[in-house]
């Protein structure tokens, strides 16, 4: 109407013109206002398209991260049994007092702290600080532990007071209890929290900083088996961090169990006997091994320690244990090396037989010592003693009497004025057989911290000491003195190989992996590291020598009624000259039984003592127990 109106008139008054222009301006203004509306919503829509359509996926991910908390659930750790399925370890609940910072009322803090102080004997200021730190953190609903390892009484009173102490609760977590504590500590090891040093390497394997992990023994070697697989709980949390519901759950897979080769009954008795026979030794070891499988039936290292202490160990306690000169945490059976003394004649003797330098009828006369002139200065004469002037000996007698001169001949030969009167096998050949028996390298037992020992030869001496090998070195090597060192485990391995006809076994302490119901998941087959290049005939000759050593020779005190034992003693000198050419000595005995059909091998090592007087009788008592415990 307005639009039509003016067209009819030609003449327009100024007022009309003014009105017309006003109306036009007004229309423009409304046009712009409408435009403004569309611009405003256009801008908002563009930004929303950017957020919801272009970057929507990223925001969705952030929303997911916001409200889902993934918390690991710990699997129960696998149990460990002895070979007769006697449980050796339990998972037991341990109680700690914790505070949920978000639920701990600030206004009543002073009152609650004094109550807790009285109840748990923990400093209130310390609690307040721990709680305060966490209260303002992202995660105020995870309990802060204020005292670990409550006594059952303490746990009970905290639980009783939970209703009156808001935010305070008893936190339960499982710990390992080792049924026999010190008796098996070196074999089982222990479990403790991941340390700060270990964490970087472990975090990719799914460990958290406060997770527990096997730290020694079987617990660490079989960590992957025992641990199981942690589960994951996807928990929906609200903005305050409070758990709303579990959205998704991946259950934890419990760890598998282990059946050890250890015979707990024998282990207990062996420990007892070694403790009785330890004398003034700093350390003592005994190992009983099944010669057919390499199963360790008993393994005792003294002094021992209680692995249960590690559940709640203070730093001082740990330092005390660690700094003890007798090194109780070290398994001396596998981690320490010693000169093997005359037990090493097993290697020299069997090697010499195989090399053809001797046979059962080879006779050598011991006048109590042999002398060697210095190659360059004949006025210097070295004397290599026997323990006695034993007279003329055949091979069996040489072994049974443990004649050093006999074995000097076998290894180094005998020369008079540059003339070879007896041809020995030589240091290189002896070193070769030594390595064959498994000395000089870890045996591969399933325990951590195994030492290698030393196999000396001319090249080794040149490299390590920069000196030339002498015939005297060969003589010392022959009788397990000088540079050669072994672990007790390696020596029982030598005896095992002689006893079983030449198989050097990989010793083991775990026989099989079992599931929670005790069903075998993974049997671990005995493993032969290598077969000796020594014929069984030659080994049999040496076995006869060892049998005679026990029946009438130096190892006689190892004899057991009703069972024929074969063995070899050793008294290895070590340390500085005590005057008059006497030294401190290690006592060794290594042997097997029954001699005619070997079943087990044994090594006994006493850090101070005499092989025949101390080690052999102790071994005899252990063997006696083994063969007669059922009687």
């Amino acid at each position, binding site marked *: 109407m307005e639009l039509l109106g003016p067209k009819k008139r030609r003449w327009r008054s100024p007022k009309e013109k003014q009105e017309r222009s*006003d109306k036009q*301006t*007004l*229309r423009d*203004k*409304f046009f712009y*206002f*409408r435009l*403004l*509306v*569309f611009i*405003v*919503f256009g*801008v*908002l*829509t563009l*930004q*929303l*398209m950017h*957020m*919801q*359509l272009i*970057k*929507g*996926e*990223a*925001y*969705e991910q*952030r*929303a*997911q991260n*916001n*409200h889902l908390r993934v918390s690991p659930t710990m699997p129960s750790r696998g149990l460990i049994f002895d070979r007769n399925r006697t449980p050796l370890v339990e998972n037991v609940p341990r109680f700690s007092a914790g505070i949920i910072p978000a639920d701990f009322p600030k206004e009543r803090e002073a009152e609650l702290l004094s109550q807790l102080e009285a109840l748990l004997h923990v400093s209130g200021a310390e609690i307040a600080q721990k709680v305060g730190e966490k209260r303002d953190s*992202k995660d105020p609903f995870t309990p802060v532990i204020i005292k670990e390892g409550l006594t059952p009484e303490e746990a009970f009173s905290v639980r009783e007071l939970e209703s009156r102490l808001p935010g305070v609760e008893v936190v339960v977590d499982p710990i390992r209890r080792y049924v026999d504590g010190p008796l098996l500590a070196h074999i089982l090891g222990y479990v403790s929290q991941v340390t700060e040093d270990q964490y970087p390497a472990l975090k990719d394997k799914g460990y958290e900083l406060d997770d527990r992990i096997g730290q020694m023994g079987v617990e660490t070697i079989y960590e992957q088996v025992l641990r199981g697989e942690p589960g994951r709980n996807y928990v*929906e*949390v*609200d*903005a*305050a961090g409070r758990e*709303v519901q579990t959205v998704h759950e991946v259950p934890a897979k419990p760890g598998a169990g282990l059946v050890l080769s250890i015979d707990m009954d024998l282990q207990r008795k062996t420990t007892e006997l070694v403790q009785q026979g330890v004398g003034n030794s700093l350390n003592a070891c005994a190992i009983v091994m099944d010669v057919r499988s390499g199963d360790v039936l008993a393994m005792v290292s003294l002094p021992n320690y209680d692995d249960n202490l590690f559940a709640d160990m203070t730093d001082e306690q740990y330092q005390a244990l660690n700094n003890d000169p007798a090194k109780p945490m070290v398994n001396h059976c596998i981690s320490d090396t010693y000169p093997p003394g005359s037990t090493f004649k097993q290697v020299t003797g069997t090697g010499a037989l195989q090399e053809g330098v001797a046979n059962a009828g080879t006779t050598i006369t011991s006048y109590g010592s042999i002398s060697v002139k210095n190659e360059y200065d004949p006025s210097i004469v070295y004397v290599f003693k026997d323990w006695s002037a034993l007279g003329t000996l055949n091979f069996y007698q040489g072994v049974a009497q443990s004649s050093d001169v006999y074995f000097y001949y076998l290894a180094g030969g005998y020369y008079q004025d540059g003339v070879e009167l007896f041809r020995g096998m030589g240091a290189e050949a002896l070193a070769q057989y030594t390595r064959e028996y498994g000395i000089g390298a870890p045996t591969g037992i399933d325990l951590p911290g195994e030492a290698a020992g030393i196999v000396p030869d001319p090249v080794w001496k040149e490299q390590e000491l920069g000196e030339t090998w002498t015939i005297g070195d060969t003589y010392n090597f022959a009788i397990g003195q000088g540079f050669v060192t072994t672990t007790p485990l390696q020596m029982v391995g030598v005896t095992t190989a002689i006893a079983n006809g030449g198989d050097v076994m990989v010793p083991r302490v775990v026989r099989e992996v079992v599931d929670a119901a005790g069903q075998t998941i993974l049997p671990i087959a005995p493993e032969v590291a290598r077969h000796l290049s020594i014929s069984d005939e030659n080994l049999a000759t040496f076995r006869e020598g060892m049998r005679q050593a026990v029946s009438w020779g130096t190892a006689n005190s190892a004899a057991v009624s009703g069972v024929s034992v074969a063995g070899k003693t050793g008294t290895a000198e070590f340390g500085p000259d005590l005057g008059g050419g006497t030294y401190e000595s290690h006592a060794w005995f290594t042997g097997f039984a029954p001699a005619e059909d070997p079943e087990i091998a044994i090594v006994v090592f006493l850090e101070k003592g005499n092989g025949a007087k101390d080690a052999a009788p102790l071994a005899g008592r252990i063997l006696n127990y083994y063969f007669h415990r059922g009687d």
Partner: protein
Amino acid sequence: MRTEKVSYIRNFDYVLLLSALALVAFGIILIYSGSLPKYDNSTAVIEHPVARQAIFAMIGIIAMFAMSRVDYRLLGYTAIFLYVGALAALMFVLIAGQAVYGSRRWIELAGTQVQPSELTKLVLVIVLAKYLTDRQERIGKPAVFVTSLAIAIVPAALVFAEPDLGSAVILVAIWMAVIIMAGARSAHVLGLIASAAIVAPFALIAVVSDYQRERIATFLDPGKDPLGSGFNTLQAEISIGSGRLFGKGLTHGTQTQLDYLRTQTTDYIFSVLGEELGFVGVVVLFALFIVLLMRALQTASSSRDPFGRLLATGICTYILFQVFINVGVNIRLLPVTGIPLPFISQGGSSLITLFIAMGILQSVRTHRGPSEW
């Protein structure tokens, strides 16, 4: 009398009414979802935000119809009293108001909380319309321009002092739109804008409280303090973005339902919409607002007198800017300032004020004849 009734029925804007009602219904649905984390079945029905909002909507609708029956030209005579009353209420808030989230905005009245700044926006529309209509002939004079500005600045300053930056901006925007529509000289308007641009940075430093400054700093970098003041901004952003095209479904937004959003039935209700109904829900909301604003602008442009035109223009500006600031804050286009989303946010003061405004628009449409007095 009969023709008047016919005119009322014929001229009544049903589309405007329906779009307003649709928005309120939409809002109540969102309030329902947003209130789930805090209210459960144990909440007395009358206490529940949905029930309260429905009651306020009912009161608002009655007020709207009542207002629509009153000749809007009568409002002009009440302007001065409304203005004085509004200023008094704002001052009272500053002295005795209740502080929520660091800001004094509410006064307790008859058992409910009243937010005078909401009503003030409508009052300013009426006062400015009246003042400028009366001085139409002298609209180009600087005195009129300055006086009209002063009329707006006084309540804006009081609101700003609460502090409520958003409402202060809206009051100034209303003044700006109304003065332009009334025919102010563009030189005056442009001059003012230019000088404001120069003064603004200094004013920001001098006048803006720590609270506002922190909010602005947070706006510029919400990651700086993700658990502190940046929390709301960040969570709103995540909520809306994570809704994507179709949303997570009503009552299924993790951000909303797990309490990551704060004030999710009031200032951040748009985030609930964005999260649970997605971009599609947002477009529907915007469409409703656009329909409502177009109808209101239609009322303004078809008004037979300047007073009605200015009233309608002011109301449009009020709603448009309120929506822009609220949504802008939610989607991080603007710094944080608490402004309700018209018709949607939970809150009686805003809703009733808006329905009265709707009533005024209807009155402008239906009272086209000569004054009855």
